């Protein structure tokens, strides 16, 4: 039982990474209607950026640990910076393709993803080699009824839940949130109602990329290694998580992320390759029985 609980803790910590990343996929899909394959690379940019920020702030660190204020500052800067990069990517690469066939936006996203991975790789001071991530959060371990849990895990799970709570309320309770929902329902009608589409889409990309940066920082805090390719497969899995939950639905992305994280940890404890494939198997099963995902609603084609 305690082993199962232990796996549940690991599943929750991985699941919160997936959930935060999946939120970006689902928001962009819901509002622009495109699959942003470059989204996983925002995670990498966030983690790598935090690595360099931590280096820049290393004079403030005492014995390799940072004070809470500095960590908050680093987190904030990394998230805002990545968010701005997300807005820039959208403005340069995706905006001109907004009214073109979906597939060309998808291929452009693949190109953007290749660029985001290989541009830092080609820069001499970053390069392809993996780096060990600094300890930003305190790592005190303690045991509750045979389950090992560290403060890092608690902080990241709680923080991601806080982020999700804030996002959920922003989307459902604020003006910009209702503009987002209007846009995802009917783009043309929303425009006719005086909603500034470009602004809403930019904000969506900002939020998505900032959340991806946060998930990158959390991921690198539990598996302390960063390199330029880390976003690729994490992105694919989070995307799968978003689809399992029902793409376009925010609650679905959170649910899908946690489902992915927990099942992956459980399956990995049996066999590591099974852990990789289980998410895809779940995806196919869910799509066969519920073609729009757990939370998604099927739309009917009209002629």
């Amino acid at each position, binding site marked *: 039982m305690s082993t199962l609980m232990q796996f549940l803790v690991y599943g929750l910590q991985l699941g919160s990474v997936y959930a935060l990343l999946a939120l970006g996929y689902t928001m962009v899909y819901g509002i622009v209607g495109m699959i942003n394959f470059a989204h996983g690379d925002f995670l990498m940019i966030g983690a790598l950026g935090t690595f360099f920020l931590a280096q820049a702030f290393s004079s403030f660190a005492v014995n390799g640990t940072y004070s809470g204020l500095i960590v908050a500052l680093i987190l904030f800067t990394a998230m805002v910076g990545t968010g701005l990069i997300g807005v820039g990517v959208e403005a340069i690469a995706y905006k001109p393709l907004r009214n073109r066939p979906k597939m060309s936006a998808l291929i452009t996203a693949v*190109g953007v993803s*290749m660029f985001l991975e*290989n541009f830092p790789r080609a820069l001499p001071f970053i390069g392809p080699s993996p780096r060990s991530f600094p300890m930003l959060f305190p790592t005190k371990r303690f045991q509750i009824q045979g389950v090992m849990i560290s403060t890092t895990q608690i902080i990241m799970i709680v923080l991601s839940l806080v982020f999700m709570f804030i996002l959920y309320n922003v989307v459902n309770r604020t003006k910009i949130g209702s503009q987002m929902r209007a846009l995802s329902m009917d783009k043309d009608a929303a425009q006719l109602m005086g909603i500034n589409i470009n602004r809403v889409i930019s904000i969506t990309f900002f939020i998505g990329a900032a959340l991806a940066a946060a998930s990158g920082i959390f991921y690198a805090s539990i598996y302390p290694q960063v390199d330029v390719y880390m976003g690729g497969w994490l992105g694919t899995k989070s995307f799968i998580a978003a689809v399992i939950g029902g793409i376009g639905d925010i609650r679905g992305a959170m649910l899908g992320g946690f489902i992915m994280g927990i099942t992956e940890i459980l399956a990995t404890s049996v066999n590591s390759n099974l852990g990789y*494939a289980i998410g895809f198997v779940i*995806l*196919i099963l869910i*799509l*066969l029985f519920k073609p729009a995902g757990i939370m998604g609603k099927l739309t009917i084609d009209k002629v």
Partner: protein
Amino acid sequence: MKPLIRKLLPILGVVALYYLIMYLKSIKVMNPYHIQVLMFAGVNIMMTISLNIVNGFTGQFCIGHAGFMSLGAYGASIVTTMIFGGFSVAPNLRIPVFLLGLLAGGLVAGAVGLLIGIPTLKLKGDYLAIVTLAFGEIVRATLRLIEPIGAARGMIGIPPYTNFAWVLFFVVLTLIVARNFIYSKHGRACIAIRDNEIAADAMGINTTKYKIISFVFAAFIAGVAGGLYAHIMSFIQPDTFSFVKSSDLLVYLYAGGTGSLTGSVLGGLLLTVLPEALRTFGNLVNWRIVIYAVTLVIIMLYRPLGLCGGKELPFLKINRKHLYEKSIFSKKSVHPSETPN
């Protein structure tokens, strides 16, 4: 006489191309590395044509095509290396064994294509894309689990049967078969589904059936291409056929132009050769994929239909007039463009 020449001209062109490259090789303008790049380009062209049949002509989104390629590569290698013993095959039996292997690879890929096509092709658009992505990754994870074929380490000791002539032969064969498929009754049904699925359905086209036909056909070609690839490399590994490979193929297809066989040839050839050519500029080595990515984004932004979307070279088209002249219903039937309104 004239139509005969027109028919023979492309074949003569291909033969001339082969001898030109062999000549360039003999006078040492091209080294074995160049030839190998061209062989990979050939395999990529076949993969792109295969993807084009699904994505470009039938309008379905398959983004896990590397899965079929890996099935074909493993299927063919199991036949040539594990059943017939690889290098110990008698020299005069090598070609039949090689062809048998390629056929097996194609059949395995086609059968799996049928198996996953029946439930998934009912899904639409993005969801189909996602399922095919998942399919590719499941194939990879499964191959990593099977111990007799080397699991994650991969399979070694595959005899390098594929040479430039074989690649050229199969590329030309694929082009001819694909062209004939596309302009057949079945191919036109697929194009109708691409243009408007609901209208095609209303016209009495069994949309699911034709989607599955084109999917299985494409999977078969991908399997053969995978078999060729395995016998160039003489080493295959599940991780070669990851999502990165699938997205490369998508890039070849969409940069070349969907719905155009000429575009597939051009996209597969140019985009295989470009990264290799950028390798030769010493100080650019690290930047080559960046340049490649930027090129791709620029193509998509300024030529959204790809380099030759919807356009074809003449010998990849079938003269439509010809079809109407042979009409069995009335001898006087005319081409629609000539009917008075």
